[in-house]
Structures are given as structure tokens and as C-alpha cells.
């Protein structure tokens, strides 16, 4: 369970979430992830993730534009992201419910 809870911050998940909006190249991904999720991915981390996601068929490269190659999420990638989002949502809901039953730990 702890492992699942930790997975919200996995770089692959962040990249998939970023690409769910629209295809992006490397720099656009890092900018989007930093802006929307508050996490900075270094070039080394980002391309390790891109290589892994591409190998698993979760994202695919598009034609390069001026040496910048955009990537888009595949149907399989969208399914993985959806499943993971559902799991995270259940965890978040559970956490809210349980925290609300403890007055001392209630959060706003």
C-alpha cells in the first residue's frame, strides 16, 4: 500500500499526465510538470522516463520539429494513467474520510 501511495510522484506518471493534455517535446514536458505539479524533472530523469515509456508503448514519438521531437500518449498509456488516477483517487478519498473522523487531525 505504501508503495502505491508513493507512486503519485513517480516521474513516469507525471510525464503521462502531462502528455494527456496534448503532445509535447522534452522542454515543454518539464515546463508543464513544473508549472502544474510543482516538480522539476532534470534532463537525465526525463529522458530515462521517456525511453522507458516509449519502450512499453505508453507514449510514441512524433515527427521532430526543428530538432524538438514531440511525444504523445498512446491508448495503452492513457489506460495506465486512468487506472493509476482511479487508484490515487480512491486513496485520496479514503484518506479524507478517515482524517475527518479524527477531529485532532482534520484538515481544511
Amino acid at each position, binding site marked *: 500500500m505504501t508503495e502505491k501511495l508513493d507512486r503519485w510522484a513517480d516521474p513516469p506518471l507525471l510525464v503521462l499526465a502531462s502528455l494527456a493534455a496534448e503532445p509535447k517535446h522534452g522542454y515543454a514536458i518539464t515546463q*508543464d510538470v513544473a508549472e502544474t505539479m510543482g516538480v522539476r524533472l532534470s534532463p537525465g530523469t526525463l529522458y530515462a522516463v521517456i525511453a522507458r515509456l516509449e519502450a512499453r508503448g505508453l507514449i510514441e514519438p512524433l515527427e521532430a520539429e526543428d530538432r524538438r521531437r514531440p511525444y504523445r500518449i498512446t491508448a495503452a498509456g492513457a489506460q495506465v494513467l486512468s487506472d493509476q488516477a482511479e487508484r490515487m483517487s480512491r486513496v485520496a478519498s479514503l484518506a479524507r474520510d478517515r482524517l475527518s473522523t479524527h477531529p485532532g487531525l482534520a484538515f481544511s
Partner: protein
Amino acid sequence: MNAPAQRPNHDQPGHDQPGHDQPGHDQPSRTYLARLALALYPPSWRDRYADEVRVLLDDSGAGPAAIASLAWRALPAWMGPSAQLGDRPARIRSHLSTGLMAWSMLTGLGLVFAQLTELQSYRLAGHPLIGWSYAVFDVALLVSALTAGLGGLPLWLLMLRQARRDMRPGVIVCLLAPILAPAAWLAGAIMVSRLFGGPGGVSVAWFAVVAAAGFVLATAAATGPVLAMRGLRPRGPALHLAAKAGGVAAALMAVAAVAILVALTGLVLWVPGFPGHHHPAWPGVFLVLAAVAATVTVVSGTRGARAAHTQR
């Protein structure tokens, strides 16, 4: 979608800072460091992603911290290799290139071993172990060279035809390197032997010169086809055959390397007439070099053959 980051959080576990440039950061040194960091990656990874990473580094103005992170990430890229990369022919070419370079180095080390031990007739009296090792080494080296040569011939001819058709003389010279470089070395070795050799052969200094020249020319002989493959990007059955032959040749060279290990260990331990018996450091260094070259040869050969064999 490219709005600047508002809330960077450098404290998140598993994420690292890009180390953005500070005012006055030295752009040429960053480019140089980035090139060094990318050089640490497997060739297949570089072929596929290096350009994109360079652009990302330029766009983000990443500094030394990001480049250090990039260098660090090269390690897992080697561990979980380019089987991850989508372009199968590029993957095969990459493994073939790395394997060819390592195979050449290992062959060079094997020839040095033969010259310094086998041809000096060091034997272990009353025990056939070293003699057997010599025999295994000879057969494995010969069959490996034949397999690599015959298996690579169709690819070589294919590239030669393509280079001639496209009128690329530089690529033709690269392709001729495996013939020209050994011929040049042989001619040089014969000349040195005739000019400076005596009844007991050449001096240690001249032997070192000839051996060093051999390694330089072996590197040139292997680099030629590697550069040609980079330029022509061949694909198809000839590439697959070369990769499979490379796998077999690599396995045979591993056998030869084990034979070297056994023979050299036997000589160091049991043959007092062998110089390494009294000074085991040099055989030790030699064995480490051979082990590294054999490992790279086998790993690349296996990966190349596997990539050629599988459909994906």
C-alpha cells in the same frame, strides 16, 4: 503549454533540480560537459535521444547539476539497455558497432598473448593444461575471426555498393579500413623485423612499438565499418546476418578469453621460466583488460544477436 515554471519543488523525492544557469554561466563549458555526459550513454541510446537532450539542455539553460544528473543516469541506461529503444535496425547497428570495437581489442590482446607466451614455447612440464589452453585459444580465435568475417561480408558488400552508388569516397575508405589497416600493420611489422630484428627477434622497445601500432590499427580497422554504418544506416537481412554472426563470434572469443585466463594463470603459477611468474602484476593487468574487452564483446554480441533474432 510552455509557460515558465511557477512552483518548482526541489524537495520531492526522486526528482532533481536542473541546476539552471546563473548569470554569467559559461555556455561553451556547459556544451562541453553535456557532450561528455552524453558520451557516457550506450551508443544506441545516444543515436536515439542525444540530439533531443542537447536541445532540451539549450532550451532549459541547464547547468552543471543537471548535467551531473544526466551523467549519473547513464549507468541505468547501460543496465537496462537499448532493448528499450524502438528502432530495431538502429539497435542492431549500435550493438554491432560496440561489439566490433571490443572484439578487435580482444583479438589484439589475444595476439599479444600468443606472441608473448605461445610462440615463446612456454609450457608446463609434465602437464598438458597450458598446451590445451593454447589449442583452445587458437581454434576459438580462428573460428571467431572466420565467423565474423564471413557473417559480416554481405553487409560489407551491401554498404560498399551503396557507398559507390551514392559516390561517397570517405565511406568507401572507411569500409576498406579492415583490409588496409591489417595490411599496413603487417608491412610495418615485417619492415621492423628485417631492419631491427636479430636472431632472437626484435628488442622489447620495438616489440612495444609494433604492438601499440597494432592496437591503433585494429581500432582503425574496426572504426571504419562503424563509421560507415553510422553514415549509411544499413538494414535488412545482411544486417541481421552480421549481428547473428557477431553473436557467435563473440561467444567464441569468450572461449578464447577463458583459454587465455587458464593459460596465463598456469604460466604465472607453475612455470618459473615465464617472466610473469616473478612479476605477476603485468599478467594481472593484461587479464583485467582482456576480461573487460571480453565482457563488452559478449554483452554487445548477445544483445545484437538477440535484437536480430526477435521480431520487435
